[in-house]
């Protein structure tokens, strides 16, 4: 399957998913991503003209720390709870 890659700036992180961020975890992920690439795409859902982060805050932060402008994603349906 072709990977889906989107601009990081199009990903909105809702307040409920913003933290806390474990800096050590971000650093370790950044090292892994720099060496092996992002092995597990982050999870987003579409929301009008942007995407909303569903899961993968630390992976997203690690990609940002590496200066990446795009990220590999899996896209799931928005769910009403």
């Amino acid at each position, binding site marked *: 399957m072709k990977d889906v890659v989107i601009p990081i700036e199009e990903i909105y992180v809702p307040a409920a998913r913003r933290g806390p961020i474990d800096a050590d975890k971000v650093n370790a992920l950044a090292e892994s991503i720099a060496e092996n690439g992002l092995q*597990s795409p982050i*999870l987003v859902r579409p929301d009008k003209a942007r995407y909303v982060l569903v899961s993968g805050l630390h992976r997203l932060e690690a990609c940002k720390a590496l200066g990446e402008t795009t990220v590999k994603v*899996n896209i*799931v*349906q928005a769910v009403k709870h």
Partner: protein
Amino acid sequence: MKASHSLIRRDDCALLVIDVQDYFLNKLPEGDRGPLVARIGWLMRVAQVLEIPILATAEDIARDGPLVPALSALLPRGQTVFDKRVFGLRDQADIAEAMHALGRRTSVLVGLETDVCIAQSALSLADAGYRAVVIDDACGSPAPNHAAGLRRMRDAGVMVTNTKGIFYEWVRDLAVHAKVLGAIGREPPPGVML
């Protein structure tokens, strides 16, 4: 996990569409393929009207090909079809993550093959605390394997029902029944009489 004899609530369901690919469909008698895909597609359309999220997988897409176009066309635009590298989908981290994120604890399984990926997925979901519900006439595997897969799951406590049964459990009342059929049309899929 909830008692398996209670009614299925649509607001707790996700519909898992597993490995509906020509590679597997072509093992079935030719006359069975189209009706099976039609029943799965019909359930996907019902699910969308009822806001039941759908998660689709296809096994080793590079080798076995994509989800059949008749069904991929029913997914919301851009939605991921997970490239499944395991038989029981709970064993793959990105799929397990997506299922967790959906927050639905009842997994309704359709697709192929009944005795392999459907059975292993249902059993591992049940082990993980999900309520697994398999739709027997929306799953397939060449005889006698379909029946063997259903027996394996039922013996392990997985709920087995059919397309008509899950439709009415999702719908529950005449107002919702009219809303769904008003949205998708009154014609049931092949082999189903509402």
